[in-house]
């Protein structure tokens, strides 16, 4: 390991080199964190507008409605509604979750947890962030074009996304933004993969890596392989829209020979299904570590968890067809995809059982990172189980494109990842900024968020099962849907409560930065490498490259006689 020696560079001195165009992985991580939190707010407000429209059709959106939609007296117009659900999905997935879970935690944790001084390619790392900024400018710029932003859904299926369905520039800018972001994420992935392979501290085998690093590594591998697939799809979409090619046009729209709109769905989901795991693997990794740290026990079956995550990553590449059961796919294919999808349950069950095994009879410390981690265990369990109904052809045919799907993927991709992200922020805040966040406020934040998100996403599954389709501006013009108005109102109030709870986090975060309690070197009493150095981590990370002598979860060892219940990875394993 440690293929070569990383030198300690001089600390940057100017404002620009220190905070804006920094090569330091920790600064880039913080840049991604701010970027992600900003877009979490933007996407969150869009979600509230969507929910408001569904609960109170025809009523002006409070506070900012009249400013944003003066022509309708503050009511969200139908075409804007389509833009809102398109941008909400796009922003939350690509501009909020991806930068926080992968950009921030990937950049911050990988070098610190493997004992490196920085990423292997610091300049590519910086470029990756600024390309993400360029992508965000393209996407947000689309809001100010004559026909507005993209409105074809976050999946942007043709023909909704071709010039026929979306004649404005907004959809083209959407495709360009996604392409640029793909380049940015691929650059990050190349950096992560190479860094983990070549810069692990001496003595650190792959199974000595914390599971957080495992999750980020697998995510990077999936990103490097599958983002270019989406890149190719969006490139062809851009060609269709800008140069008049006909890759995704069929029938009367194509003059000679024929394109294929369904092809985009194939390409999108070849990327899109691994994307689910791209987003959730870092959260799984973080939670797998935190459960062990706060249960004061070694991670139960840590190797099996790592291998289960690897198996899921591999299987995730073979199941994309379950998103397309209703596209007149051959029954032989649907059954194959269904069977492959069901096999994912096996490794999922293994690591889920390992999570339970980790906390079983542990001396659990219910600090905020642990609460959020336990929240992930709960919501991911629900999200995973409801996925079975959508992976099965017979039930999916009924549930396809309903709010059941929306509820399911929000449980897995939004709730799990969001809670995992919060767990990570509360946990690494001391090492990132050198301060502790207020535990009391963090716990209030957790409980209100938990109540709110379950009200929203479980409610969505109920109305979906009742037959409510997604993406409808006003479903209640259908008589049979009118009985679902009360529960939709309940969902919206839950969403408002969940949204308001995030102000507690923002206050706590900013207040801690300004006047937070100074953090000690190792406030959580765990043994991974980042906790062997001062808080916040110095710019060179490690004065001496550490030598790893034991695993990352050496907690609660009864042979320890040093007065602590954990060992650092740099210490020899204490045996009887």
């Amino acid at each position, binding site marked *: *390991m*440690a*293929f*070569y*020696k990383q030198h300690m560079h001089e600390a940057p001195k100017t404002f620009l080199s220190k905070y804006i165009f920094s090569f330091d992985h920790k600064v880039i991580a913080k840049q991604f964190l701010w970027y992600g939190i900003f877009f979490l707010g933007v996407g969150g407000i869009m979600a509230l507008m969507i929910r408001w429209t569904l609960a109170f059709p025809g009523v002006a959106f409070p506070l900012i409605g009249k400013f944003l939609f003066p022509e309708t007296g503050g009511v969200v117009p139908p075409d804007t509604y389509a833009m809102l659900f398109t941008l909400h999905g796009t922003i939350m997935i690509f501009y909020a979750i991806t930068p926080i879970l992968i950009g921030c935690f990937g950049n911050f944790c990988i070098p610190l947890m493997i004992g490196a001084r920085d990423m*292997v*390619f610091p300049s590519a790392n910086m470029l990756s962030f600024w390309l993400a900024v360029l992508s965000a400018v393209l996407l947000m710029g689309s809001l100010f074009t004559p026909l507005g932003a993209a409105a074809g859904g976050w999946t942007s299926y043709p023909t909704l996304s071709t010039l026929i369905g979306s004649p404005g520039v907004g959809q083209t800018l959407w495709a360009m933004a996604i392409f640029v972001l793909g380049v940015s994420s*691929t650059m990050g*992935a*190349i*950096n992560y*993969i*190479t860094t983990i*392979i*070549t810069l692990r501290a*001496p*003595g650190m*085998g792959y199974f000595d890596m914390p599971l957080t690093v495992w999750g980020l590594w697998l995510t990077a591998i999936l990103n*490097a*392989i*599958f*983002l*270019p*697939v989406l*890149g*190719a*799809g969006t*490139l*062809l979409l851009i*060609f*269709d829209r800008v*140069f*008049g*090619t*006909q*890759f995704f046009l069929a029938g009367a729209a*194509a*003059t*000679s*020979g*024929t*394109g*294929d709109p369904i*092809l985009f769905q*194939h*390409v999108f989901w*070849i990327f899109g299904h691994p994307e689910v795991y791209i987003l959730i693997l870092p959260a799984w990794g973080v939670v797998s570590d935190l459960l062990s740290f706060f249960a004061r026990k070694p991670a139960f079956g840590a190797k099996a968890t790592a291998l289960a995550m690897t198996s899921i990553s591999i299987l995730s590449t073979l199941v994309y067809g379950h998103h397309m059961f209703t596209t007149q796919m051959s029954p032989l294919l649907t059954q194959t995809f269904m069977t492959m999808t069901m096999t994912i349950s096996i490794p999922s069950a293994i690591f889920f059982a390992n999570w339970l095994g980790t906390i079983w009879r542990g001396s659990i410390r219910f600090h905020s990172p642990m609460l959020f981690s336990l929240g992930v265990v709960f919501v991911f369990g629900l999200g995973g189980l409801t996925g079975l109904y959508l992976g099965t052809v017979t039930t999916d045919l009924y549930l396809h494109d309903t709010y059941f799907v929306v509820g399911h993927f929000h449980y897995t991709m939004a709730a799990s990842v969001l809670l995992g992200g919060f767990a990570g922020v509360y946990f690494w805040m001391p090492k990132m900024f050198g301060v502790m966040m207020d535990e009391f406020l963090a716990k209030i934040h957790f409980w209100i968020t938990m109540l709110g998100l379950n009200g929203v996403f479980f409610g969505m599954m109920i109305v979906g099962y009742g037959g409510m389709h997604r993406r409808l501006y006003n479903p209640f013009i259908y008589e049979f849907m009118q009985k679902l108005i009360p529960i939709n109102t309940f969902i919206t109030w839950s969403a408002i409560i969940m949204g308001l709870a995030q102000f507690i986090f923002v206050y706590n975060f900013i207040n801690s930065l300004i006047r937070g309690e100074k953090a000690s070197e190792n406030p959580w009493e765990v043994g991974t490498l980042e906790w062997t150095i001062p808080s916040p981590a110095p710019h060179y990370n490690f004065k001496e*490259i550490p*030598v*790893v*002598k*034991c695993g990352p979860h050496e907690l609660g060892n009864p*042979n320890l006689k040093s007065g602590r219940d954990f060992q650092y990875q740099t210490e*020899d*394993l*204490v*045996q*009887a």
Partner: protein
Amino acid sequence: METAHPNQSVTDRFVNEAQVGDSFVNREATSSISMVVVLVSFSMLFATLFLAYAIYRFQAPVWPPMGMNRVNLFIPTLSTIIAISGSLVFYFFNRDLRRGLINSASDWLNLCVVAGLGFLMVQWQLWSYLKSLGIFASSGIFGSLNFGFTWIHAAHIVIALFLTIWLRLTFKRQSQCIENGNDGEMHGLILKSQNIGKFWHFLTIVWLIIFLFLFLL
């Protein structure tokens, strides 16, 4: 009681290796690993395009579609010859650079730039020729494939060409350092050249596949 880690001897070995530090072999391995990942990513992009091609081709009752003519092979064959020659030239450049034959390597590098520019000029001719046949990007899926795929490939050639020109511009300064016995500069130049060379070879392979499926079959 503290006992030795089961991998203690391995640990010691790695500590020693880490102390040895900056060996060229290790840096070359790091560079190769990252370049493999880069090329896997690019391969997936082109593999997706070829998947699309296969679907269009298998769905079409006749190929080329009604009203379209096959493209004369002269220009695509010329592109193929230039692409293969460019790859060979880059190989010779890398070989001579590794042997320390700076002047000869410099000549080969000039030829690499010429090959890249030549390929792009021939592609321009191909697009003009397609238009003269009445095949435009908007002429159904046949035109879309011919233009779309060659555009994407040419865009990658432009990137490779820029990289080669950058290599050319820095080559003089770096080769002077090499002549003064600066091993670090030498290693940096070799790694840079190897990676750009791999990208050229990759694009040659992609072109061969485009030539086979789009023009020959």
